[in-house]
C-alpha cells in the first residue's frame, strides 16, 4: 500500500486504461435483431467488428422456383417481403414477360404503377415505424403501423389482399380500379399529407431523433457505390439513381416525379429521403388517377384464352381476370431475361433463364436487403453499440427479404 502511494507521489497519478473487449450475440431472440443474429465484437462501447448470421428465414426461393410452374411461383416470390409484395411480383412478371415477349396494355401499366406506389408508401411507413422503435420512439412505431393501415386497405380493395397480393399477371393485372378505390385513395392522400406534418413535428424534427441520427452511420458516395447500397440509402449518399428514372418501367415514363437526393449519407438523410419519397409517391398517385387511360387490363393474347362463361361471370360482372387452369402451365420459349424495378427498399432484380419447359431453369432473385448485408456490416464497424440499431433501422434492412 505504501509502495503504491510512493509511486503515485513520485510519478504522478497514472490511470491504467483497461480495454474491455467482449462478444455479444444480438439475436436471433432479441428485441432489436429481427430474424437474424448479429455477432458483435465490442471494445468498450465501440463496435470493432460485426458479423451478420443471416438465413434464419431462408425460404429457398431459388431452389423451389426450379420446381414450380411460372404462375405457381408468384405467391412464393412475393413472400420474402410481404409488405413490399407488389414490387416483388412486378419484377418477376417483367422478367417473364420479356421471355414471353408480351405487350402489356397501357391501363394495366398504369395500374401496376398505382399498386406499386401505394405499396411503396406502406413500405416506407413500416420502415420508419421500425426505425422509430429501434431508437425507443414508440410513437413513431405506432404511427407508422397506423398510417400504413389506410394504404393497406386500398391495396385490399384493389387486389383482394392486404399483403401478398399476387396482383400482377404476365400480360396485365388481375383486377381493375373502381371509383370507390379512387375516392379512398384521395382520402388517404389527404390524411397522409396531414399526418406527414405531424411526423415532422414528433419524429423528423425532434431534437432527440436528430441527435441520434445525424452523423450516425455516415456512408460517403464512394462507399455507397463500393459496398453496393441501393434505393433510398444510395440516394441519401448523393447518387441520383432510381430505376424508375434510369430505365422506366410500368407507367413511370409518363409520370412526373422527382427523386430526392441528399449528400450527407447519414441516418437522418436516409429518413428524409423516405419522407420525401412518400410525398412524391402521393403526387404520382394523383397523376395516375387523373390520367389513367381506358382499355383492357390484360394483354389480348391471354385475354382470348379466357372461356366465354368465365368472361361473362367475372369480367363483365366484376371486372376481374380469372384465368383458366391450363394458363398456369404455359411454356415460354427458350431464353433469358433480366428485369429490375425500384422496390420500396431499392433496386430489385430478377434473372430468369428459361429452357422451354413450364418451369424456370434458373431464377435469381436479388433483393435490396440482400445487397444491404455488406453495407450493414461495413457501416456498423466503428460505431457505438447504441448506434447499431440506428444503422439497422435507418437502412430499413428487412431480414426475410435478404434471406429469400
Amino acid at each position, binding site marked *: 500500500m505504501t509502495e503504491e502511494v510512493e509511486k503515485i507521489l513520485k510519478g504522478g497519478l497514472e490511470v491504467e486504461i483497461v480495454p474491455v473487449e467482449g462478444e455479444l450475440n444480438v439475436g436471433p431472440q432479441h428485441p432489436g435483431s429481427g430474424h437474424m443474429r448479429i455477432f458483435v465484437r465490442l471494445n468498450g462501447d465501440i463496435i470493432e467488428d460485426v458479423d451478420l448470421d443471416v438465413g434464419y428465414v431462408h425460404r429457398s426461393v431459388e431452389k423451389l422456383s426450379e420446381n414450380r410452374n411460372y404462375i405457381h411461383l408468384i405467391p412464393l416470390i412475393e413472400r420474402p417481403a410481404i409488405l413490399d409484395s407488389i414490387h416483388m411480383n412486378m419484377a418477376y412478371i417483367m422478367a417473364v414477360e420479356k421471355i414471353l415477349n408480351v405487350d402489356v396494355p397501357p391501363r394495366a401499366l398504369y395500374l401496376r404503377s398505382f399498386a406499386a406506389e401505394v405499396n411503396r408508401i406502406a413500405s416506407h411507413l413500416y420502415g420508419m415505424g421500425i426505425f422509430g422503435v429501434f431508437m425507443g420512439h414508440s410513437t413513431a412505431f405506432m404511427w407508422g403501423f397506423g398510417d400504413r393501415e389506410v394504404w393497406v386497405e386500398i391495396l385490399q380493395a384493389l387486389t383482394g389482399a392486404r399483403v401478398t397480393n399476387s396482383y400482377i399477371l404476365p400480360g396485365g393485372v388481375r383486377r381493375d380500379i373502381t371509383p370507390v378505390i379512387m375516392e379512398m385513395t384521395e382520402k388517404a392522400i389527404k390524411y397522409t399529407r396531414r399526418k406527414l406534418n405531424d411526423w415532422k413535428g414528433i419524429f423528423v424534427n425532434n431534437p432527440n431523433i436528430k441527435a441520434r441520427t445525424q452523423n450516425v452511420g455516415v456512408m460517403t458516395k464512394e462507399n455507397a457505390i463500393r459496398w453496393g447500397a441501393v434505393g433510398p440509402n444510395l440516394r441519401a449518399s448523393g447518387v441520383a439513381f432510381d430505376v424508375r428514372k434510369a430505365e422506366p418501367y410500368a407507367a413511370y415514363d409518363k409520370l412526373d416525379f422527382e427523386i430526392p437526393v441528399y449528400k450527407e449519407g447519414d441516418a437522418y438523410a436516409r429518413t428524409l429521403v423516405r419522407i420525401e419519397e412518400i410525398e412524391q409517391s402521393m403526387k404520382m398517385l394523383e397523376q395516375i388517377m387523373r390520367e389513367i387511360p381506358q382499355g383492357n387490363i390484360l394483354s389480348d393474347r391471354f385475354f382470348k384464352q379466357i372461356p366465354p362463361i368465365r368472361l361473362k361471370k367475372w369480367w363483365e360482372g366484376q371486372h376481374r381476370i380469372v384465368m383458366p387452369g391450363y394458363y398456369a402451365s404455359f411454356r415460354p420459349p427458350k431464353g433469358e431475361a433480366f428485369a429490375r424495378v425500384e422496390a420500396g427498399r431499392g433496386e430489385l432484380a430478377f434473372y430468369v433463364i428459361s429452357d422451354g419447359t413450364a418451369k424456370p431453369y434458373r431464377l435469381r432473385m*436479388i433483393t435490396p436487403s440482400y445487397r444491404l448485408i455488406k453495407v450493414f456490416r461495413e457501416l456498423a464497424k466503428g460505431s457505438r453499440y447504441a448506434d447499431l440499431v440506428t444503422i439497422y433501422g435507418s437502412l430499413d434492412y428487412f431480414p426475410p427479404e435478404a434471406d429469400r
Partner: protein
Amino acid sequence: MSSVPDFIQEIQRKINNIQIKADGTNRYSIELTEPSKIKDLAKLLQNSGFDHVISVSGVDYPEQEKLGVVYHISSYEEGKMNIVLTLKTYVTYKEPVIDSLISIWPSAWTAERETFEDYGIIFKGHDELRLFFLPEDFDGVYPLRKSFKIKTEGIFVDRRG
C-alpha cells in the same frame, strides 16, 4: 435489338476470346471463354464506368459438367445507368475455381459468397468463403446444383379411426 455501343465494343478489341451481343434494349452480354481473364475484363469494365455488381449467379449445366458464373454489372454514371451488362463465364465441375472480383467491385461480396455455398464455385481471393444462409450441416452439399433433389414430404392428414 439495338447495336452494341462503342465503349463496349472497344473491350472486344482488347481482350481475346470474348463474344459480345445485345440481348434486348440496353442489355448486353459478354461471354468469356477463358475464365482466367475475368479480372482483366473486370478492370477494363470498371475503367469504362461500370462501378457496381448487381448480382452474381451460378447456373448449373449437368450434361456438360460445367457451371456458369454470371455477373450482372451496371453503372451509376449519368447516361450508363440504364445499361446492364451480363458477364458470363463457365467453370468445370472438376475445377470450379475462378478469381474473385471483390477487389474490383466490393459489391459482389454477398453474392459471391452465396454462389460459393450454393454451387461450390470457389472464388479465389474472396475473404470469407464460409456458409452464409445455410445451416452448418450443409457443408459439402451444393443445394442449387441440379443433382440436389428436394425431398418432398407429401401431405399428411389426420384421420379419425
